[in-house]
């Protein structure tokens, strides 16, 4: 699997086109029309940022590695393609996804530790490991036991040696990959496309300017460079970027896909500024409390 993403269940069952994904989502919302109308939820990206913060809060004291955290994020995203969020207690889903991801990524955590950390982080009402155990069945069942996740980190490691990325470029690309879990991209594109996008952005953006924080404006200039690759070849840009653009133009990599990924990331960085944790927390608490989902 690791070697053959193309044969994987991720490729076969969990990679969608944008219209397909929109359709799945609409079907889900239509089936719960009343709930959807009654309880507004935040923008999906804001929600993802919120989930990520919550997961990291839990993961840090447990010493959970980034890849397991990423796997948990993908599980949560897959799960909410199948199950309407207003029918669930997100805190329980997050804790369970992390518990399951740790086992799958070979860094298991005891279920009691997960429960204790979840209670510590969220002061949640679930106080029994059986809740997590039961939710685990639901999670696995909704994902059809397809638990192996192909992450872009491995592709990045290969690209790093091929293009001799600097330490800074590599860590910027790594953090862009971390960011992509906050978008729909894990459900839309192959991991190597994500890795190429991340590397490209990292090289264009030059990590020296203003630390590792990526900004929308910078990404926009990257898009322009990509436009050159699409046109065949470009000129006028610096050597390093040019080399990448040429390689992209000559490779079999789907440049449209890289452009799409870049745009998705731009809109994430744009919307990030308006993120407010409290809004997410309150809106979730509202349907959870009202429907007694924390019981």
């Amino acid at each position, binding site marked *: 699997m690791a070697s053959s993403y193309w044969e*994987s269940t991720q490729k076969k069952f969990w990679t969608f086109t944008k219209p397909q994904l929109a359709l799945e989502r609409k079907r889900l919302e239509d089936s719960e029309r009343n709930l959807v109308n009654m309880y507004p939820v935040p923008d999906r990206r804001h929600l993802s940022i919120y989930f990520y913060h919550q997961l990291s809060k839990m993961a840090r004291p447990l010493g959970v590695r980034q890849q397991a955290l990423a796997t948990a994020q993908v599980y949560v995203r897959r799960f909410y393609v199948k199950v309407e969020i207003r029918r669930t207690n997100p805190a329980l889903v997050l804790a369970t996804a992390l518990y399951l991801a740790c086992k799958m990524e070979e860094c298991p955590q005891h279920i009691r530790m997960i429960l204790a950390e979840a209670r510590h982080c969220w002061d949640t009402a679930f106080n029994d490991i059986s809740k997590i155990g039961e939710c685990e069945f639901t999670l696995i069942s909704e994902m059809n036991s397809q638990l192996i996740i192909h992450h872009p980190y491995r592709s990045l490691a290969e690209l790093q040696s091929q293009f001799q990325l600097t330490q800074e470029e590599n860590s910027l690309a790594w953090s862009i990959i971390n960011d992509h879990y906050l978008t729909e991209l894990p459900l839309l594109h192959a991991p190597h496309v994500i890795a190429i996008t991340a590397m490209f952005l990292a090289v264009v953006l030059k990590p020296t300017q203003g630390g590792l924080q990526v900004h929308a404006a910078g990404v926009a200039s990257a898009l322009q460079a990509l436009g050159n690759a699409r046109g065949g070849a470009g000129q006028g840009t610096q050597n390093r970027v040019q080399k990448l653009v040429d390689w992209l133009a000559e490779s079999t990599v789907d440049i449209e896909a890289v452009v799409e990924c870049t745009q998705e990331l731009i809109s994430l960085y744009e919307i990030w500024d308006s993120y407010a944790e409290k809004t997410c927390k309150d809106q979730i608490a509202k349907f959870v409390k009202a429907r007694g989902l924390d019981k």
Partner: protein
Amino acid sequence: MFTGYNTKKRVNERYKIIGFISSGTYGRVYKAESRNANPPSMKLFAIKKFKPDKEGELQYSGISQSAIREMALCTELAHPNVVHTVEIILEEKCIFIVFEYAEHDLLQIIHHHNTGGQGGRQAIPAKTIKSILWQLLQGLVYLHRNWVMHRDLKPANIMVTSSGKVKIGDLGLARLFYKPLQTLFSGDKVVVTIWYRAPELLLGSRHYTPAVDLWAVGCIFAELLSLRPIFKGEEAKMDGKKTVPFQRNQMQKIVEIMGMPSKERWPLLAAMPEYAQLSSLAAGNARFHRPQGLENWYQGCLKNNQYPPGSGPDTPGPEGFDLLQQLLEYDPQKRLTAEKALLHPYFTSHGKPGENCFEESKIKYPIRRVSQEDNDIRTGSLPGTKRSGLPDDSLIGRPAKRLKEG
């Protein structure tokens, strides 16, 4: 879900249990028939029911890591020489993996030749062995290419269908080996049933490789030829302490035939954690200084089992010895890979191996015995199935029970 887990499929609605096949630390296996076969040709199944973490557990308490691994790998893998997973059913605290049914397994085939259905001990035809090994290696190449180490290859885990197709089964200990987040050693302290355990594992290697599976293939090859485990050691038990004992007796059995491993042939030998144990092993044991030698073992075995002398289609011949020797290579880095093993002259001289391992064989193997004493897959639990070892991923890989099966 927050009013309880709602099962989507029910095992009893989909399958009719015909009988009980076997039990182990993992749970129980049943033979079953589809209630509405689709496709109709696929009628028989083996259903593995995982044991809850604690016997009689009435609560959800989290699924063991090995069950999670097996579910994920079974869902992902598809190869003609790996047991096909039909579906996985999660139903009220129970997990069922539904596999295609295989009428035989290598343990049972070896047993049949040992006791002799008619007229005593009888060697397995050379062509059958060649086909079995060929198919086994094909399956293993597939697993290894996909970064999956099996880690528990032994005759009982190699299935054979009635049409002679060999299928690797029981991925309960298998796992991905691409850049593990922790060393492989820290996850499961002991892997592979002891008789098939590679020397680097016996010597405490932390970062072992898929080569452990190839050692096991060598042991299985030898067992198919001689009808007895080649290195039949006794397992040193863990004495309640959290340390893994050195498997002195098993290592002795290997050395008695293979001779002592040397730093010249195995450069990293001295770096093995249990290296010091090796010299103490030799002290006072005469057979260490005059080991039987694999070649003598092989020639004796061929003679005993009346394979014709020389080279030809009806004997494993000198090519077989060369292959065996390269599989039972001490140094894991020098040991043949599954891919290279398939290119060995053993498989190319005297005709290509058959796709059906029973081709041209007149031997009739008995069908798998099933018992009727426990036909209720939902509630069935017989005495003797109580969990005896430690929970998964703690210190013991497989308790002694599995050893006896192997």
